[in-house]
């Protein structure tokens, strides 16, 4: 609960683009007031704790045209007790074509809600200030650092096993969702169409940033043999990567022409470094800076999630030193199946991965396969639209919404669905073997209507 509230407050303190010039201090105080009302929360994040050590004003983002207003505005639903659905007055009628969640197929982790209604949430007339459910770095200069390669950092899985990981962090250890126990995936980088952006990598060990899908030129492509690698020095026991040693700091320059979802990952000894956790997501916003549409004049949404799809093969993380790919890393056989670096029950308690929203809201999930296995996504029977892929709208819309969709390694798809009228369904990500024949394992998340 604690980390959820920190995340919720931090997202209002993250830097906003220069195109906004409104400062809305009232909302910030209101947020602080709510947090203390709810009791079991830490103090609000003090100013100055965001990524570049300055206090940015809280900006009001007006909702898009077809966005329904969240009756539960401003309240992060994971703060409610599990299994309890606070009543919402004045629900709109079921939109045409809306499918109600299947009954009895996917048992929810918690029993059915109690018949006694929960206390109504404190009314908050202010609209939701941000659609996104994760932290992000950017759009001004983004600074990324690499973490230790010597086996000192771990991420604990749902079974309690600590797995050695390597990661990217923003300055001040900022991470994917403000939770510093989660090193992998790395922080989300946010950019704007047409805006020249600098992403600076600081690394004392050999690493690069490959900006996957952003079609940057060779010098900024992050491939060691064609554009060098970033390192302070080479420890004597590590063979040098191909290419030129760029030094400890390198700034990648790019301008993204297309709004959409992209990835970044290290491209040194890539098969090993990416498995160890050196990857993350880049979101490019439309030119006008709106955060509630996928692209200019494109589909709108009320809430937005990122699901980074990947697995771990724990043998690869315990292979000892020196950490260089070779026969010790033969035959990738995953044994942990994740969304956003969490597996098992940890997904259900992760506010960035388990979806909670009001009935009728439009929800976008940016599906990003940062792993090695084909992933089939199913939203518990909720049909969804597949709208964009690899940073481009589909050339023509699919004729129907779908029940399942495969995301292959390296691909991204932006999908959208409407929240059911009530209840909870279990979404699943089934990871297939590379032949596409068998399901090796699954990651389950929940979609809960407020």
């Amino acid at each position: 609960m604690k980390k959820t509230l920190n995340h919720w407050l931090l997202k209002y303190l993250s830097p906003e683009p220069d195109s906004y010039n409104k400062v809305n201090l009232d909302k910030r105080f209101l947020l602080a007031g709510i947090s203390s009302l709810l009791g079991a929360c830490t103090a609000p994040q003090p100013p100055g704790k965001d990524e570049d050590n300055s206090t940015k004003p809280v900006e009001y983002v007006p909702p898009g045209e077809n966005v329904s207003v969240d009756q539960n505005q401003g309240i992060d639903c994971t703060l409610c007790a599990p299994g309890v659905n606070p009543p919402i007055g004045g629900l709109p009628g079921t939109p045409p074509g809306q499918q109600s969640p299947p009954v009895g197929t996917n048992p929810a982790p918690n029993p059915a809600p109690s018949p006694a209604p929960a206390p109504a949430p404190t009314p908050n007339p202010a609209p939701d200030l941000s659609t996104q459910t994760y932290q992000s770095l950017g759009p001004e200069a983004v600074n990324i650092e690499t973490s230790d390669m010597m086996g000192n950092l771990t991420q604990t899985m749902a079974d309690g096993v600590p797995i050695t990981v390597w990661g990217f962090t923003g300055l001040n250890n900022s991470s994917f969702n403000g939770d510093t126990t989660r090193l992998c995936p790395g922080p989300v980088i946010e950019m704007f169409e047409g805006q020249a952006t600098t992403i600076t990598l600081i690394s004392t060990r050999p690493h690069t940033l490959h900006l996957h899908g952003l079609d940057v030129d060779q010098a900024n492509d992050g491939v060691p043999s064609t554009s060098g690698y970033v390192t302070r020095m080479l420890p004597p026991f590590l063979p040098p990567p191909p290419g030129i040693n760029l030094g400890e700091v390198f700034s990648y320059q790019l301008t993204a022409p297309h709004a959409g979802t992209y990835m970044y990952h290290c491209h040194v000894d890539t098969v090993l470094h990416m498995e160890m956790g050196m990857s993350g997501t880049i979101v490019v916003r439309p030119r006008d800076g709106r955060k509630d549409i996928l692209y200019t004049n494109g589909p709108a949404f009320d809430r937005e999630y990122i699901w980074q799809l990947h697995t771990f093969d724990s043998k690869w993380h315990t292979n000892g030193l020196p950490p260089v790919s070779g026969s010790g890393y033969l035959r990738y056989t995953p044994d942990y199946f994740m969304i956003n670096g969490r597996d098992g029950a940890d997904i259900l308690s992760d506010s960035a991965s388990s979806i909670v929203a009001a009935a009728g809201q439009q929800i976008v999930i940016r599906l990003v396969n940062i792993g090695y296995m084909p992933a089939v996504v199913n939203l518990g029977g909720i049909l969804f639209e597949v709208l964009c892929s690899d940073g481009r709208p589909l050339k023509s819309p699919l004729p129907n919404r779908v029940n399942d969709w495969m995301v292959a390694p390296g691909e991204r798809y932006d999908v959208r669905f409407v929240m059911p009228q009530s209840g909870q369904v279990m979404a699943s990500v089934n990871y297939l073997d590379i032949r596409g024949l068998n399901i090796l394992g699954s990651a389950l998340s929940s979609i809960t209507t407020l």
Partner: protein
Amino acid sequence: MDRRDFLKTGLGGIASAILTTGLTIAVPNRAQAATVVFNLTAQEVFKPILGTTSLLTWQFVDATAPSLGNLQSNMVVNQGDTVVVNLVNNLPAHPVSFTVPGLLNAPASIPPGSSQTYEFVAEKPGSYVYYDDANLQLGRAMGLAGPLVVLPMDNPNAIYSNAEPDHQFDKQYILMFQEMDSRINNAVAAGLPVDMTLFNPEYFFVNGLSYPDTIYNAAGVIDDNKVILMGANQNIALRFVNGGLIYYPMHFHGYHANVVLRDRILEQHVVEKDTILVKPNECVDTILSVGSQLGLYPLHTHYLPGVTTNGKYAGGGLLMLKAI
């Protein structure tokens, strides 16, 4: 005059060269359909891996086809051609057949020492894969597969007939994927039973080559005959043919490419991609528009173990786009 003579004399002019990592095939532009004959032998070939290990493989060998480490005979024909394949089975202990999904299905299989003629008409333009189906997946695991490309009659520099300008190209490449699990090859070599459910490859090939041979020559210099060589503002057709058993999500550095055909069907929806999935037996014809972006950019599967050889990065099917 058979097709090989056409190539030697250049009669009718060379319309476009199909290049496959170090291998060039000239294709004449004929005014009308012809009968094209291929003589293939299914035989054992010991394939050196990284110059040391040698794997027993099975290959369809065409004695007249140019070969630079390639595993297969590259078949390129015109729409409407009658294709005749004379196959001889020189495998010591296994049957073999010749199937081309979309053109020739449920073919007869033949025992060792026998021969069989397969005949079909190349009706629909696009890329196809041919392979042995008499041993279920083992034929492909051992290397019995190859690409077949049908060029439209109206324009050999287009993906299909009456193609829009975006689906025409200046150059075309065939890129065929295969992979091998040495435990399978070694079991076949020793005459032991084979369990294909365990197939989990550690060797990966494009047109029979693994990195660095997919990019560099023997002296370690980037070889312009091996890279995907492109000019500014050109359209480059990349025909992905999956002759193997695993998924290949092919990721482009530097560019997005457009999916034109998936198994000869025009793709209407998921078109502009930086990562294009090619499933086993699937053929995906794509066009990359180079524009003004020059330089060196890798092209490789994002199943990153496929960019290794025996676990070591870099290896496997790592390709390079070179725009000059």
